[in-house]
């Protein structure tokens, strides 16, 4: 039988103001047999996390890009700033994530230029979710966590209460259609290890230093146990003034510090004689 390869522009509805000038990929993969087969099963080999607290949003991620058993890149960037007050954490296929981050950044900038105000984080999440929707069921794999601060630039249509509009937002958007708002998210193969640390220590009243230390600890524990997470940890802190980036820290140092500590324990353990 004949394989029909459909080539055409993505049909854009006229009432959708955001996509009128989009140049989304022109050929949608209609049948997976016609696209490039996956070389190995995607398993979101990463650890990214983000949580909200009184001082804003703390986002942290490891920096290992893995390709089945190979560490393809030990210094990749999984936290991508989208604009001054919005940061996206990515998990899944790094190529897809990099592309969609750029598309989202462009769409948000266009919105800002057209309407004179920034799109809220929840709007950005909805936009991303709708843009990813046509690819549902294909091999596209993007799991993004959007962390942002809304408010501050009030347009003519906003209400007078500035406190209500200014808030941190945390959204999880996935290429299978999930869009969730929450206070704490961790994505990737290392996420269970991070979740238990975060559940223990995260609460609204954390100070900035405490939040940094718990985020770092959670990523470190995930890299300790998960094979697909590792190398360094990146941390971003989003507040009303925008995002600030902490220096990338190599977790190898932390690992060796802990190993030293355990070695001391081992020597004192050998000295103990078991009675009875």
């Amino acid at each position: 039988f004949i394989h029909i390869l459909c080539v055409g522009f993505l049909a854009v509805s006229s009432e959708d103001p955001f996509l009128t000038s989009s140049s989304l990929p022109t050929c949608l993969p209609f049948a997976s047999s016609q696209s490039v087969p996956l070389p190995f099963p995607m398993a979101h080999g990463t650890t990214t996390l983000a949580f909200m607290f009184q001082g804003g949003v703390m986002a942290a991620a490891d920096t290992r890009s893995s390709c089945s058993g190979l560490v393809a890149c030990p210094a990749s960037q999984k936290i991508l700033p989208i604009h001054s007050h919005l940061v996206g954490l990515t998990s899944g296929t790094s190529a897809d994530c990099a592309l969609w981050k750029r598309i989202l950044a462009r769409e948000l900038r266009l919105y800002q230029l057209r309407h004179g105000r920034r799109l809220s984080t929840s709007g950005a999440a909805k936009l991303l979710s709708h843009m990813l929707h046509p690819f549902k069921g294909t091999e596209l794999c993007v799991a993004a966590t959007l962390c942002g601060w809304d408010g501050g630039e009030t347009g003519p249509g906003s209400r007078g209460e500035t406190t209500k509009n200014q808030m941190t937002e945390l959204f999880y958007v996935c290429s299978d259609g999930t869009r969730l708002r929450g206070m704490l998210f961790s994505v990737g193969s290392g996420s269970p290890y991070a979740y238990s640390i975060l559940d223990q220590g995260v609460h609204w009243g954390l100070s900035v230093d405490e939040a940094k230390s718990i985020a770092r600890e959670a990523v470190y524990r995930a890299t300790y146990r998960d094979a697909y997470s590792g190398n360094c940890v990146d941390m971003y802190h989003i507040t009303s003034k925008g995002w600030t980036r902490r220096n990338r820290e190599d977790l190898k140092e932390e690992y060796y510090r802990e190993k030293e500590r355990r070695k001391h324990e081992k020597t004192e353990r050998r000295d103990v004689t078991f009675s009875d």
Partner: protein
Amino acid sequence: MALEDVCSFKERPVQHKWFSFSSLGDAAIPFPKSDYYNLRLETSENNCGVPLHFFIPPLPHSSSFINRPLSSFCPPKNSMTVQRPFRLAHGTTTLGFIFQGGVIAAADTRASAGGLVACPAVHKITPIHSHLVVTSSGSGADCMLWERILIREIRLYQLRHGHRLSIRATAKLLSSMLHPFKGTEMCVALTLCGWDNGPKLIYVCSDGARLQGDVFSVGSGSPYAYGVLDRELRWSLSKGEAISLAREAVFRATHRDAYSGNNVDLFHITAQGWSQRKREDLKEEYYRDKEKKGKKKNDKLK
């Protein structure tokens, strides 16, 4: 090998006692299940009556299966064994670790069957003898059976030889007993936690793994427990701290994992034997934790 001799663990032709009826090409004939699953144990003739024989079902890759006469019964691929209703995923959280005060073993109490909580109050930690406790994961039925078999074998050894089998030898014995079932659908992952001249923790799995270590956590909730354990586990923990750490690790796992939950069981093994802490419902802990976080939020806002 001495152990092999004691257990008469040689390759014996499997007794096809239950294949006595002839026409079995037809899958519609009901299989006499009572005979198939009847593990009648025979004492061996040459050795001092070590009853470690099973009527091992002819496994596809064992020699007896290949060598059987072709005219006899040939089980079609999946029709005669019970079909698995859902995929086994070790839906549990069990953990064990060693510290200066002995060994702690902890587990949740939820038995799940696919999406159903089949039983919210199961015992996943079973004492084998006064100084050995085993935590189980995998198929609940298989684990219960193998715990009983292990208890019996250890007791028999003790009666025959006058001293208890060491924990490492127990693990080896268990591993060799599980070996014939490798490749079948049996799923057993046990962690032996005990004391013999020092705290011991050994993980034995029906895949064949047998590992000694300082900390093990098994089951679908194990990554969550590992995060908490890795962070705070030290050799120098006090007994109270160790118990609270084990409890916290199981609680965090039950919080995030759907297949773990309900209560937490805790055993503490020392040179004097094992002692069991009262079973605790984690629902209370959840509400306490929620309140604590709420209070911290209010304190900060003031």
